[in-house]
């Protein structure tokens, strides 16, 4: 049922976006520019050293890949859908979603797809693959499995974090600015958070959870993830998912609609 609904929403969004093909080319340029920043940075840095705080050039490439992939997922579905949610709360049009028989949180979360952003997802996977192939050591099934698990945990953490921010729209009128903070902090994920000073690592782990979304999966893939960190990531993913659900329900009770 859930998958069929996701499929339908994807199809509707794809059809409407196919009318604007120029956006596809703009997206190509956009992705290319972001890639140039990432790869160019690595090239300049590794002209002067063979390891950045224990990370080799290929391992950093994997970080850039995960950064692009998760960034792609955010702008492919999370940002468009939850952005739409905030709009709907403000305009009172959330009523239409609430009337539907499916779970409302699920419905608002798959409402809108920015189809061309799929390019970043593909690109991210490509970069990760190249990074893995170039790394001399072989990567076992176990590592790939932990990587996927950590990626899932990171995805859930980011999604729940966004949902909590978006839910503040039930109380506050204008929250775009808060989201903008997240967007600009996300840039810091281009590099592993372990290179930052401790206070910044703390911020990037607990206030803006990009450490779990980007650095931790990358560490898992190269086999350098401490087991405690992995367990912590899973625990936080479950906890924040429940918490965001509670805040969402609490917010819904606060929602009075436009016509009421």
């Amino acid at each position, binding site marked *: 049922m859930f998958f069929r609904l996701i499929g339908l929403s994807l199809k509707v969004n794809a059809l409407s976006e196919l009318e604007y093909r120029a956006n596809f080319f703009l997206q190509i*340029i956009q992705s290319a520019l972001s890639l140039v920043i990432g790869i160019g940075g690595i090239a300049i840095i590794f002209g002067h050293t063979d390891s950045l*705080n224990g990370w080799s050039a290929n391992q950093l490439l994997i970080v850039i890949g995960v950064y692009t992939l998760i960034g792609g997922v955010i702008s492919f579905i999370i940002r468009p859908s939850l952005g739409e949610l905030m709009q709907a709360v403000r305009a009172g049009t959330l009523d239409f979603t609430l009337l539907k028989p499916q779970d409302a949180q699920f419905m608002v979360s798959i409402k809108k797809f920015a189809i061309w952003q799929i390019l970043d997802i593909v690109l991210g996977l490509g970069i990760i693959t190249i990074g893995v192939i170039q790394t001399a050591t072989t990567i076992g099934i176990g590592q790939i499995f932990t990587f996927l698990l950590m990626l899932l945990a990171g995805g859930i953490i980011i999604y729940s974090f966004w949902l909590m921010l978006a839910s503040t729209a039930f109380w506050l009128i204008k929250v775009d*600015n808060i989201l903008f903070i997240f967007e*600009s902090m996300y840039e*810091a994920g281009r590099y592993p958070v372990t290179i930052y000073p401790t206070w910044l690592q703390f911020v990037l782990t607990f206030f803006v959870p990009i450490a779990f979304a980007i650095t931790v999966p990358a560490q898992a893939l190269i086999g350098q993830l401490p087991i405690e960190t992995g367990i912590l990531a899973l625990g936080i993913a479950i906890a924040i998912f429940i918490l965001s659900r509670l805040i969402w329900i609490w917010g819904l009770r606060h929602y009075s609609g436009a016509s009421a």
Partner: protein
Amino acid sequence: MINIYKVLIRNELLVELQYPLALAIWMLEKLLEPIIYLAVWTSVAVSQGGDVNGLTVADFAAYYIALLLVGHLTQNWHIWTIEWYVREGQLSKYLVRPIHPIHESITNDWIYKLLMMVVILPAMFLLAWLFSPSLQFDFGAILRFIPAICLAGALGFLGGWVVGLSAFWTTRNGTLVQMYFLMMLFFSGRIAPLELLPDFMRQIAFILPFRWIISFPIEVLLGWVAPQDAMVGIGIQFAWVVALILLAIAIWQMSVRRYSAVGG
């Protein structure tokens, strides 16, 4: 003219002070980039046993703290607003006024930059406390920094205007603007002090105007540039400013002819 500026300044002050949260966010965004690259180069210096090409951890800290100041004083956000004005047809109301819209841009620019110094200066002290930079200002360097930063500010402003005017030809010039910022990142000394760039990139950086906006004023302020070289550099900056003014005038005249507002 002075009276016009008085009114414009008052308006800008009122507008800027309206949104304290938005100001705080811009601040955060501005702080982040220097911190990212400072952290990167600090890591590299540490792994290389204390310095990269003679630049120590403390030198990088000084460089990126100065970058915060120079980056702030040379930025230009009109590069975005011009597109919006053209696309939405908002430009009309500026065109019918008896003064050229660039005067409003200039006031907006100055007020914002001066006002934000209230936040930038504490931020610089905070970074200085967190990263302990090597600071040895000599009075001569600060004196030479004044013309260098003024010309750099003019260059940043003009560069943004010229790129922003491309909005008259293509309604979505966002890509062009992003390319401009990309070049700025690599060739102005933001991603790394210029001497750390690979040779071919450094050569490109010396041809382009970007280094005169960022890296040159920083190096002058930190006393990394010999006095005579600083004078030559200021001369080159001046030449770039003149060239860009001529270019801006030429492009402006071509662009306004193309402009047609909806319902105008």
